[in-house]
């Protein structure tokens, strides 16, 4: 890996041309120009490995994705332009329309769930007292867990003879087909995503809560404001930037949900949990329709962008 960096020692003769007068180092002397050139050469050598990899593996695929969405390509290497064919096909593809609907419904369930949940937890845990650190550590545990591993456990918990149904039966209720009911599957998946994410959002809210002036809160209370009034008129205004940030990242996350669906439902039952990214994966890597999959990716990107802009408008121009 040091293969990239081994050019710099050579560009680097021991102590350069006398930088002795470092106070007046920007003198427009000949030596200064030489020094500046040498500095630039070294800088380019330092950024070269990173920038090269970035161009090849980030920029080229991003541009390639748009190009590919107007083309057909097979792994054998056959390439042909097809114009807007893929986009036209998307418009009339009931699977795509269904994937759009599933993604939208999932987002509408998951985002409020995790945002409200993490905000409530942040408010509960914000006052440092005995045990808050332990609670914080526990709440953070799922954040570090891959949704693949978590999904395997949750699949069992929600399975027909899993832990949740055993508990329901234990208290005299009948068991529920959580993962095989088309109406229940998205709320179930959203609950798992919420479990996995709320610890992270909670930290963001906790950091934001630090900026709420304690005096202001106490003054409001002394003046007889209720708990809700204090929250609504004193605390919440300070949370606005954090709230915006959390809503945006959770929305982006929901649009791109994949791991947990792959593991827990594989898009089923029928196609009731087949989201856009899941469809992209299937088209691209099960059917090898690369052009079509790329078109789905472009549409996904466009939707994400539009939604982020709309949310930005909604929250005012608050900076994150």
């Amino acid at each position, binding site marked *: 890996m040091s293969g990239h960096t081994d050019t710099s020692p050579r*560009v680097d003769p021991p102590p350069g041309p006398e930088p002795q007068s470092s106070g007046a180092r920007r003198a427009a002397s000949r030596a200064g120009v030489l020094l500046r050139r040498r500095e630039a050469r070294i800088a380019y050598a330092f950024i070269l490995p990173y920038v090269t990899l970035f161009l090849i593996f980030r920029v080229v695929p991003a541009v390639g994705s748009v190009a590919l969405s107007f083309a057909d390509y097979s792994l054998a290497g056959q390439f042909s332009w097809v114009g807007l064919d893929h986009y036209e096909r998307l418009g009339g593809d009931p699977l795509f329309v269904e994937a759009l609907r599933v993604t939208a419904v999932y987002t509408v369930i998951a985002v409020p769930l995790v945002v409200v949940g993490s905000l409530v937890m942040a408010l509960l845990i914000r006052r440092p007292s005995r045990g808050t650190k332990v609670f914080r550590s526990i709440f953070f545990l799922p954040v570090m867990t891959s949704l693949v591993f978590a999904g395997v456990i949750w699949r069992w918990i929600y399975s027909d003879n899993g832990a949740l149904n055993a508990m329901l039966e234990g208290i005299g209720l009948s068991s529920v087909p959580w993962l095989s009911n088309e109406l229940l599957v998205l709320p179930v998946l959203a609950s798992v995503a919420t479990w996995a994410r709320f610890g992270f959002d909670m930290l963001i809210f906790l950091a934001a809560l630090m900026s709420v002036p304690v005096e202001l809160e106490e003054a409001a209370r002394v003046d007889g404001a209720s708990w809700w009034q204090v929250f609504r008129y004193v605390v919440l205004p300070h949370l606005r930037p954090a709230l915006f940030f959390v809503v945006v990242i959770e929305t982006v996350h929901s649009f*791109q949900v994949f791991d947990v669906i792959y593991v827990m439902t594989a898009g089923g039952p029928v196609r009731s949990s087949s989201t856009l990214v899941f469809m992209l994966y299937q088209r691209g890597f099960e059917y090898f329709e690369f052009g079509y999959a790329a078109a789905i990716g472009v549409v996904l990107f466009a939707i994400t962008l539009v939604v982020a802009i709309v949310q930005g408008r909604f929250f005012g121009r608050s900076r994150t």
Partner: protein
Amino acid sequence: MTVTESGTGGAGGSAGGGVPGGGADSLDAAPARPPRAGLPQVARYAALTVAAVATGFPFYAMMVIALKPPTAVIELPGSLWPWPLTLETLETALAGGEIARWALNSVIYSVGSMVIIVVLSSLAGYAFAKKRFVGRDAIFWSIIAMMMIPYHLTLVPLFILVSQAGGINSYWGLIVPTLANVHALFLMRQFIMGIPDEMIDAARVDGAGELRIYWSLVLPLVRPIVATVGLFMFLWHWNDFLWPLVVGQSEQMRTLTVGVAGLRQQETLLPLEMAGVALAFLPIMAVYLVAQRHFLQAAMMSGMKG
């Protein structure tokens, strides 16, 4: 969602003293006089406890079931008693060779990527922070702007690129495309900007070469961010799923996430499946216990990704 210069909490802090204040630290530095509780203390603790049990239950269930005999029939609630326990299932899972191989792949993928990312991003971050050259800011902010492009958009072309180069089912095909990490670069540059120019100039006057300044001065000064970025990158790669899924197609090249996700197709018994999950999760758990502060910090910083 714009990432501004001041966007990282404490990233611009003085690095001269060592640890620039980060997100997780400031969480502990709570206001001196906490506001009065809106809820009675008891209700607060009750709510927190319920949430903690619900959060922790999956981990508990996983561990207990993984510690049952491989062929144990799981009955509820009886099987959730932490007794009797045996390491037999974990041993069986490891002895199969399959999971050990996946674990090795995961280690290569996450440790390899982590080390190279830290080196590349700190080298480039140092240049972007401290060197003057034509196009510096334009290049840097173009790279940051690319954060807006979701990973999934690039997935298909990236796969084609790597497969044409013969990288499918290879370690380099797995690792190399993930190395130009925007996140790591951004954090490194922000922290290195906090190093006073005088220190670098002084080292240069003392005759230190450029690589030496980077290695013996800059890197030690930004050690906290190196630890945080390293940890975050390790975690991200350890948990990564989609890329290993499309690149590591053969049984031999699967990472733990891909392998464990595929266990169901093989109709694996529940204790064995949970043992696979436990083995995949335990390293994370161990690192978490040791370096929790860095984890919280890494998570806060990952938020800047958007």
